[in-house]
């Protein structure tokens, strides 16, 4: 057990180094794809926490969008351009909203949890579409960001953002891995199994769910903030329910057995989608649908179960 988590910690640091080195050789489009995959992986990492509690959020794009819009507005209204500060601010804004809405949502389970999450995300969508100040359905452009006071060329900016995304993603993965090893992390499965026993162990089930719900919101906010800086534009489509659905899709695709799974899942998703869109622009959703169907049929525990099976076979 001790060895297992040391391996994960080392593996994640190694992944950071590899991601960093890749930055020197990746073409611009690949670095961009990498940023998007890492950002979505952050959101899915949050869904992994909820999934382990037995909860599925169909509205996680709410926090993704809040992260994105916060970055855009901070740049537009306050002239804040530092990428690191903007990421922190987007994360903080999403955390604050999650802390508020979580007071209500964390009291619900199953389909009610899923639908209430969806409802809140669609309320924000509706508000954004109707607000002329925020560009209504067109959204608005995010001012270019700087890194430690340096304004970079678009090409270098993408690479710097890629590095930022890699650091945030690996940092978040390390933290979540630590959480999963903590009593709190193990309580997730306990809550899924028997809330009654958890309460009779002297633990508030609500607090266990609430803490992890807020953490999931923070992770989605970070992902949204980085995405907004990479794309350079935010619009209400960020919080639309199909985006939330995509996050759930990646969660199932990736599996919830390990903190690295969301990032690998997101990367695969982005690659499949990029190529599917390019080669089958009118049927790419069909391709994704077939992939999901095959996964549910043959790999119900996601891609990560392949890794586990492979490792198990080796040992």
């Amino acid at each position, binding site marked *: 057990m001790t060895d297992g988590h040391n391996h994960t910690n080392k593996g994640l640091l190694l992944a950071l180094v590899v991601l960093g080195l890749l930055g020197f050789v990746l073409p611009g489009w690949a670095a961009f794809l990498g940023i998007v995959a890492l950002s979505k992986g952050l959101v899915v990492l949050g869904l992994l926490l909820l999934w382990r509690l037995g909860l599925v959020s169909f509205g996680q794009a709410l926090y993704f969008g809040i992260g994105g819009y916060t970055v855009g507005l901070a740049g537009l209204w306050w002239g804040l351009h530092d990428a690191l500060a903007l990421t922190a601010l987007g994360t903080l804004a999403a955390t604050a909203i999650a802390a508020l809405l979580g007071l209500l949502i964390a009291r619900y389970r199953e389909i009610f949890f899923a639908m209430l999450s969806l409802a809140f995300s669609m309320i924000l969508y509706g508000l954004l579409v109707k607000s002329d100040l925020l560009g209504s359905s067109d959204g608005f452009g995010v001012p270019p960001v700087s890194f430690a006071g340096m304004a970079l060329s678009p090409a270098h900016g993408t690479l710097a953002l890629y590095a930022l995304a890699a650091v945030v993603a690996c940092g978040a993965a390390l933290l979540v891995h630590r959480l999963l090893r*903590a*009593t*709190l992390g193990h309580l997730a499965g306990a809550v899924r199994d*028997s809330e009654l*026993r958890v309460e009779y*162990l002297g633990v508030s089930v609500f607090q266990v769910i609430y803490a992890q719900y807020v953490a999931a919101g923070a992770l989605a906010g970070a992902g949204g903030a980085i995405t907004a800086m990479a794309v350079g534009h935010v619009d209400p489509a960020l919080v639309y329910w199909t985006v939330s659905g995509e996050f759930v899709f990646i969660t199932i695709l990736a599996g919830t057995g390990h903190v690295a799974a969301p990032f690998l899942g997101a990367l695969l998703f982005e690659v499949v989608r990029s190529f599917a869109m390019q080669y089958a622009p009118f049927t790419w959703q069909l391709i994704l649908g077939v992939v999901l169907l095959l996964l549910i049929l043959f790999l119900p525990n996601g891609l990560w179960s392949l890794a586990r099976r492979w490792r198990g076979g080796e040992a």
Partner: protein
Amino acid sequence: MPLLQTIGLTRHFGSVVAARNVSLRVARDEVVGIIGANGAGKTTFVNMVTGYLTPERGHIRFADRDITGLRPRQITRLGICRSFQVPQVFPSASVRDNLLISLGVIPATPRALWRPLHRPALQEAAETLLQRYQLDGHRSQAAGLLPQGMRKLLDIAMAAARKPRLLLLDEPTSGVSVAEKHDIMDIVMAALREEGVTVLFVEHDMDIVARHAQRVLAFYDGGIIADDAPGTVLQDPTVRELVLGEPGANGEQADAER
């Protein structure tokens, strides 16, 4: 001062009286058996003491405080734990992790919950419990795959992990084969004696009650009809008719009780 005292607990479910004016005292280190036919109000009593149900009238005092209306987790933290008729374990976790989780949440502060579950001090404590409840042969097995008797033991071990002052066992041997019943109760009672826990247990098997209880409470129709040493209560004609279902033991007295 009694460890547990209830004063006039009353609770209805619709027109059914599940508890009528239940008053009793339990002293430290007592082992009390609760008997009664199905629907007599035994589990309702356990549920009220542990905060799952709130009495409509009456008070519950534990040591020197009034715990009426507190939530289960607050009552648990004060030192009253319970096991369940249908074991409430975590089926997808291993037996050892079930115990580690039960130990890891003491106290349930954010700081304590953030500490790693698989840490040496906790593992040692879990090991003690595994051995005390004779679950050590199953430590790596998922709790959901345990035979019923073992699952009952695990449920009780989880409740005892906190070293409560008072432990309520709701039918610890129900659903367990006759062959296993006595072994399980022997293991549980030996473990609890070692831990110095005051025990209230609901039981249908009178052999087990006679063997383990120092005192027996007989419930009938939401009230207590007998409260004495096991030898006295189990020979009481009213109890024999109303609780044990032996017809005609004492027809007149039974009618008078109603």
